[in-house]
């Protein structure tokens, strides 16, 4: 198919990094959502009256009708485990002995993805009620990590 041949002394590969460094704002909705977590340890959603849905994390707009969302509602800090997984693989693809327990916790019509802790991984079940465990006020910086994890209610 080709007429040229590869030089037997050709280096096999060229190795390099792709430098991508970023700074993200939390945005119109994220600014308030995370400030309320940081300052009040409360979780807020925004409600779309047209579609009758409450978005958590709070959104500035409704993805279904594109209305601006201005009605903020407290959705509490407890919810049911909609689904979960025992994650045996690290961010870099290497395997780990003990799994991270990761759950999607239903709050309003959305919810939060976070760790579950203070629970035996084998006993986690869909439908289990869990509550958010916040960091101490002084430790909270305004981030998803202001919630340490969710734990079973009880």
């Amino acid at each position, binding site marked *: 198919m080709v007429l040229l041949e590869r030089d037997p002394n050709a280096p096999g590969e060229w190795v390099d990094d792709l*430098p*991508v460094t*970023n700074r993200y704002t939390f945005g119109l909705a994220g600014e308030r959502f995370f400030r309320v977590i940081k300052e009040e340890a409360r979780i807020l959603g925004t409600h779309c009256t047209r579609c009758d849905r409450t978005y958590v994390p709070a959104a500035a707009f409704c993805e279904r009708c594109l209305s601006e969302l201005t009605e903020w509602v407290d959705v509490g800090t407890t919810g049911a485990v909609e689904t979960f997984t025992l994650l045996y693989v690290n961010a870099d693809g290497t395997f780990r002995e003990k799994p991270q327990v990761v759950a999607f916790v239903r709050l309003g019509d959305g919810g939060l993805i976070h760790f579950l802790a203070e629970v035996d991984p084998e006993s986690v079940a869909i439908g289990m009620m869990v509550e958010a465990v916040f960091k101490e006020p002084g430790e909270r910086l305004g981030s998803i990590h202001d919630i340490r994890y969710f734990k079973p209610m009880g």
Partner: protein
Amino acid sequence: MAMRKVAVVGAGMTRFVRRAQETARELTWQATHQALDSCGLTLDDVEAVCMGTAPDAFDGVHMKGEYLSDGAGAWRKPYMRSYVGGGTGVFVPIQGWYHVASGMFDVCLVVAEEKMSSFYPHAQAAFLTIFDHTTERPLKPNLLWIFALEMNRYMQTYGISKADIARVAVKNKRNAADHPSALLGDKNITVEDVLNSEVLAWPVNRLDVSPVTDGAVALVLAAEHVAQRITDKPVWIEGVGWSLDTAYWTNRDLAYPRYVEQAARMAYDMAGIREPRKEINIVEPYDPFDYKELHHLEGLLLADRGQAPQLLADGVTERTGNMPVCPSGGLLGVGNPIAAAGLMKIAELFWQLRGEAGARQVPGQPKRGLAQAWGDLMQVGTVVIMGR
């Protein structure tokens, strides 16, 4: 077979700012929301969504078309992202055009977004990685290099001076003073200001260059039978063209953008235009650097090779001239959120042709306009011709 006619029926845009508080998804939503509002449609009326956005590195999200989908109104809709580098902003309406012209969809959103400030600390550093990873990137090139190399070759080939070129920046930044979204409008700027601004990469000075910008723009496209129900002032997409030259950019002459000519010829052909200099009333060529406006006018066959500076000197390309060029203020004045900047030019033609451009309105009730963008390694031409 007769081609389905496609109209632009609505447009919206955010302010163009140096760094926006909105997330990229929120910026996208703001423009989309405005575009729908402008023509009284809701998301229920929209059948498909086209997204244009340039390198993922800027917003800092892999597969960023997916990330921007909800803001663009794509929830549970057919949605695709097209991508031809800097040419994307004028390509995405072409993408919308073929969605509608194919007969598959009657109403289509066309959205473009860029949040360059998310690449931090310096958005320009993202451009290192557009060069060939093995044969060029080890030299640590930056974006200024290729523009400066091309500008120098263009100046040398046709004997054009830096002052000739600086007039473009002056014209566009002055025009932009009338644009409510503009980042760098300046009524009082002079050629001396441009020539005296700091040298970045000779022959390029700071004011020869458009700024790093955040922003979003959206349009609503509709098939003829729908367009006529929505508005009595549809603006038709009469011709589209695009062309991609070889990636081996050091194996061709940089003095003339033949890929722009190819794209323009395709668009003129589709629009039935034989004498573009007589038939095009407003031009929005791509002006990320001031010399590019001149370069592109030549590629578009709207000026003879090396003669675009004369048009400028003669006032032909002023807003009140015979062939206004970048009445919006262009990328140099309004700002350059890559893909969104290209789509801003289409929005400008939409407003101009409807007589809704306010202080920027070109006199004489223009009938037909052309917008063009450029991208990749001085390689892509994208052209859209619109008329009322």
